[in-house]
């Protein structure tokens, strides 16, 4: 049961590869698969902890898949992202093999969320990277190889760092399972933990390791870049949080993450102001959001606010990338009121304007930051919120108040997918108390 969110997408992707011609079948099956992942994630939530020892190998010898609160929430979000991306892709001309590759991406992300084995995590990272490499580089235009090249190269370097860290750690503690490593970790193993943490930081696009992200996201098609924005960096963040909260606390490492995260927020916002390409601008904004959530983690540890903000980030960033895809396709002017409304909701949520979801997450995280006397970072986080708001106002000014250019036809599938995410954002805002309670429960179990 617990392996199903991993196995199912891979099996369906294999079927797609056998029948590459049946696009219609692929579209509907991809939708159903995402729906099943979503439902499975929610059903895991009803139990506090579901454990599967793969192949009957007992802990700590085998690979153990664990669906506890945090990973179940993430799996159900992967399902939601899959549903929305599939619906959106109906309105877009996509290359062959989009659906099998995106399903492999979803399956491997689920694997990374569910596993508690360090080497297994490496394998899921690689599967995820391979799927995203191919999705990115088959979609780029002729002059877009620079972005794909940077993306591939930097992520490969991070994989090798991760692999070396895992090897060194296994050599000294003789364990691969997170909690098993944590029980044996000594002060002489810190180097390997640093290596692993640096690899996660590259994957979550923290400054100074973020260069691959703004270089590559806007090269892909709108669906693919929304998938990337929703999932790729979050896997890095999730793994970093997961591993570091299981391991005994390493104050130096947390301090370094806090400093990098603060710089990320600034660099992301400042970089975004210099961009003319809409999706590239949003990609820089992703960097600053990553910085914010990791700053929250490094100062206050794994709290309900961090989980809440992670959920909010996935939904809102994906929605903005989808809206950006619609805008870019139709020139500079958007006539549709629904798209405009959705943009306002997502932009305000991203900037943290009350009463939208970002406000509650930001409020709690910034309160934590100040409580732990990271005053400078807290002030910068507030400034970053203001910067995001100004950026969003600028996008509004350019793209929604611009001159009308011809008749605009937006695929209704794309509008539907944007509406779904907007409704999710709104319900995160309205039911924020309940969601925060859920997040508290998630980290308690």
């Amino acid at each position: 049961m617990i392996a199903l969110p991993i196995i199912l997408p891979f099996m369906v992707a294999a079927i797609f590869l056998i029948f590459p011609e049946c696009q219609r079948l692929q579209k509907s099956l991809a939708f159903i698969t995402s729906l099943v992942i979503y439902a499975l994630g929610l059903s895991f939530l009803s139990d506090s902890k579901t454990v599967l020892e793969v192949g009957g190998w007992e802990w700590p010898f085998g690979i153990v898949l664990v669906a506890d609160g945090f990973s179940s929430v993430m799996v159900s979000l992967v399902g939601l992202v899959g549903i929305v991306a599939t619906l959106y892709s109906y309105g877009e001309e996509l290359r062959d093999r989009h659906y099998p590759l995106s399903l492999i991406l979803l399956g491997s992300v689920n694997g990374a969320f569910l596993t508690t084995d360090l080497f297994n995590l490496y394998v899921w990272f690689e599967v995820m990277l391979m799927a995203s490499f191919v999705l990115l580089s088959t979609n780029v235009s002729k002059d877009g190889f620079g972005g794909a090249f940077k993306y591939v190269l930097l992520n490969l370097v991070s994989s090798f760092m991760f692999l070396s860290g895992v090897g060194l750690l296994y050599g000294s503690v003789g364990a691969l399972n997170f909690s098993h490593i944590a029980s044996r970790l000594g002060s002489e193993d810190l180097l390997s933990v640093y290596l692993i943490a640096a690899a996660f930081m590259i994957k979550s696009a923290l400054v100074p390791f973020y260069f691959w992200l703004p270089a590559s996201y806007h090269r892909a098609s709108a669906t693919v870049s929304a998938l990337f924005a929703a999932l790729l960096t979050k896997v890095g963040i999730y793994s970093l949080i997961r591993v570091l909260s299981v391991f005994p606390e390493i104050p130096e490492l947390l301090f370094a993450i806090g400093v990098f995260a603060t710089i990320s927020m600034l660099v992301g916002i400042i970089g975004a102001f210099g961009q003319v390409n809409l999706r590239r601008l949003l990609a820089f904004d992703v960097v600053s959001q990553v910085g914010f959530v990791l700053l929250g983690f490094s100062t206050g540890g794994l709290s309900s606010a961090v989980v809440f903000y992670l959920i909010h980030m996935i939904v809102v960033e994906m929605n903005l990338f989808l809206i950006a895809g619609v805008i870019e396709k139709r020139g500079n002017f958007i006539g549709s009121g629904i798209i405009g409304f959705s943009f306002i909701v997502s932009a305000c949520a991203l900037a943290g304007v009350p009463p939208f979801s970002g406000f509650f997450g930001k409020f709690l995280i910034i309160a934590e930051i100040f409580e732990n006397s990271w005053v400078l970072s807290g002030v910068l986080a507030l400034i970053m919120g203001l910067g995001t708001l100004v950026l969003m106002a600028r996008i509004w000014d350019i793209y929604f108040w611009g001159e009308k250019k011809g008749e605009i036809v937006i695929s209704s599938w794309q509008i539907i997918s944007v509406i779904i995410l907007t409704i999710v954002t709104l319900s995160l805002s309205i039911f924020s108390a309940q969601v925060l309670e859920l997040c508290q429960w998630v980290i308690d179990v």
Partner: protein
Amino acid sequence: MLIVSLSVGVLFSSGVYLLLQKSLLRTLLGILLLGNGANLLIFVSGGLKTKAPFGKVFDQSFADPVPQALILTAIVIGLGIAAFFLVLILRASSSTGSDDVAELDRE
């Protein structure tokens, strides 16, 4: 032990050196060297023992099978990545007509 450890260092440093070159093909070679360096590192960190891990009785003189399994997996993944990377640089260089990394960003 010392020789293998030193060769890990040599593999890593030459891999990084090649990655910093401007030529696309050299970055591929750099990736390959880094991958092999990481594999060898796991191998060394598992301890260099001569006895194969077969049989029913084990003691400290037997090699640990887990690093070997890890390396096997990492080699397979590395092969896939090298193949993909080769195709990527092939397409990139045929579209720009040169082997230079800096040419990729020219629009």
